[in-house]
């Protein structure tokens, strides 16, 4: 390695007048080479987006129907100076193909195996829509969607479907007409999903989460007002004589244990034990306490708790990242 410009100071070559001279050998080379390097890099950088803009989808949207067939719609930039454009489809079982060019001009197509030859007529953008049956397979009750996508894409899952496994990190998720819509990155993706009547789908929307901040502000204001009110009331109470009364405990609102069992005669014996423990614990208990008390593994206890929730005996609340199990107060009314 060597530098093209060497400082003259190092060679002690100051002129008689004290003028600093710079050795000019190699300066021309340096300037030309640097300029060429720069120019070539700029050209290369400018070409990259042009090359990648052709033949790469601008948008890729997929809708999965309940039978596993998938509707695909995509927009692609194509070279306007060619007559034909060959596009690889995501499979070979294609239905309802429509390709339109600029100004919604319907283009002629020929499907050859898993690709389509489109007569573009000089269009610069083509929109393609088709249905395909190759992307989803089913085994037993499990449905699996597989795709190797050249670009990011959106995927609208069917109603009442729940994801039970996936290989990629989603970019985003939103709710469209009670259906989960995922935005996924390019590359290979596999998603397993199930249909169930008991699914509490769709998964709560992003908006709900983002609204938490505003809820927190409103909640904060309410809490401050309540604290102020409590302080005022307590200050006033200090001046009054204490009155003996039985503390009102939450248990008063809960049905007694025999009534619960009468209302739910089909409860399993081990579940009844759980209910008794919760009742005696003031009507609520942490799931972890239940596990310790009954020496049950996490999954078994979780399933028991879920069973009781389905029966309408208890309700589950989140408390400090733990499940707080509470006996329901309005069981009788529901019955």
């Amino acid at each position: 390695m060597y530098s093209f410009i060497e400082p003259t100071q190092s060679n002690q070559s100051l002129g008689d007048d004290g003028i600093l001279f710079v050795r000019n050998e190699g300066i021309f080379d340096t300037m030309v080479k640097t300029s060429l390097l720069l120019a070539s890099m700029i050209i290369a950088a400018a070409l990259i987006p042009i090359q990648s803009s052709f033949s790469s989808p601008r948008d890729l949207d997929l809708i999965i129907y309940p039978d596993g067939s998938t509707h695909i719609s995509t927009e692609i930039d194509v070279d306007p100076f060619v007559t034909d454009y060959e596009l690889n489809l995501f499979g070979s079982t294609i239905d309802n193909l429509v390709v339109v060019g600029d100004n919604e001009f319907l283009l002629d197509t020929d499907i050859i195996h898993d690709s389509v030859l489109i007569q573009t007529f000089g269009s610069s953008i083509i929109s393609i829509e088709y249905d395909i049956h190759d992307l989803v397979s089913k085994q037993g009750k499990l449905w699996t969607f597989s795709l190797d996508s050249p670009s990011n894409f959106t995927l609208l899952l069917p109603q009442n479907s729940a994801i039970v496994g996936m290989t990629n990190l989603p970019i985003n998720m939103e709710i469209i007409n009670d259906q989960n819509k995922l935005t996924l990155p390019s590359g290979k993706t596999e998603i397993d999903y199930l249909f169930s009547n008991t699914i509490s789908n769709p998964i709560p929307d992003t908006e709900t989460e983002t609204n938490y901040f505003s809820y927190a502000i409103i909640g904060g204001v309410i809490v401050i007002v309540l604290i102020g009110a409590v302080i005022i009331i307590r200050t006033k109470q200090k001046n009054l004589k204490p009155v003996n009364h039985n503390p009102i405990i939450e248990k008063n609102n809960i049905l007694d244990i025999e009534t619960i069992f009468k209302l739910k005669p089909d409860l399993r014996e081990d579940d009844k034990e759980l209910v008794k423990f919760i009742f005696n614990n003031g009507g609520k208990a942490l799931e972890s306490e239940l596990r310790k008390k009954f020496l049950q593994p996490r999954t078994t206890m979780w399933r028991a708790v879920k069973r009781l929730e389905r029966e309408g005996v208890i309700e589950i609340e989140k408390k400090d990242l733990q499940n707080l199990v509470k006996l329901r107060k309005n069981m009788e009314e529901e019955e």
Partner: protein
Amino acid sequence: MKKLAVFAIIVLIFGTISPSLVDRAYGQSDPSILLRIAVQADKQIVNQLDRVYGDQIPNNLQILYDKGHRAVYSLDESLPNDIEKAKQDFLLAMNSFMQISRTISQSSEKVVVVTVSDKSNRHLTSEIDRLEKYVKTLEKISKKYNTNVESDFIKIYDLIQELRIQINDGYGTYDDVINEIKIILDSVKNDIRESAIKQKSDFIKRFFDRLLNQVDKILTHAQDNDVDQIQIDKAHALILEIRELLSKNQINDAKVVFAELKGFMEKIGYPIRIT
């Protein structure tokens, strides 16, 4: 100059990697979606295990579930501060749940792999939904070309309505109705294409004109390179034929001859490439 070069290089490097940075940033915009998906999957797996095995969950599945469930808890704790850890937890959880659901589906009584293209497994509502979407796409295109196909679309929508009633009732001549719809749709597509070609004929003619001028230049070049004159003449004859067909507005025929010309040019080693 050196500083300028360094600056330019930094700009170029940043410009090259910035799209990926944008993508990553977008992916992290709302990491709580990872937790929501994982929690939902966890619940589903618990339901599945409960339904299929009751209290006697096979040991391997129990281990897998515990692994996935721990990952969901860890994901909950990682958010919102440790995004990278959250991503790892998410993938670990979803991978564990995926293995469980696949094992359950393989070991369940119905171990038949069904491809969704299997006609015996058809889901008529989905089929009609897809068909209706296709009809709407064509209807939208047809409006651009002032085609006289409105009555056809009314008929198609009536038939779709009839199909839906038949499905609700649980009996009917589904295939006959679907075939009828498809026949009308083919006719509509032809009408649209014809109408589109009429409206676009000028554009297509200009496009061909540009192409044929280019082919002329390629042929001149080929002639300079001593390509057989008979072949050059044949190519010129095809060009002439295309121009004549275009002047008579016979676009489809012109396209056929152009395809022949294209093949011929490739055969003589001078493919049509316009850039």
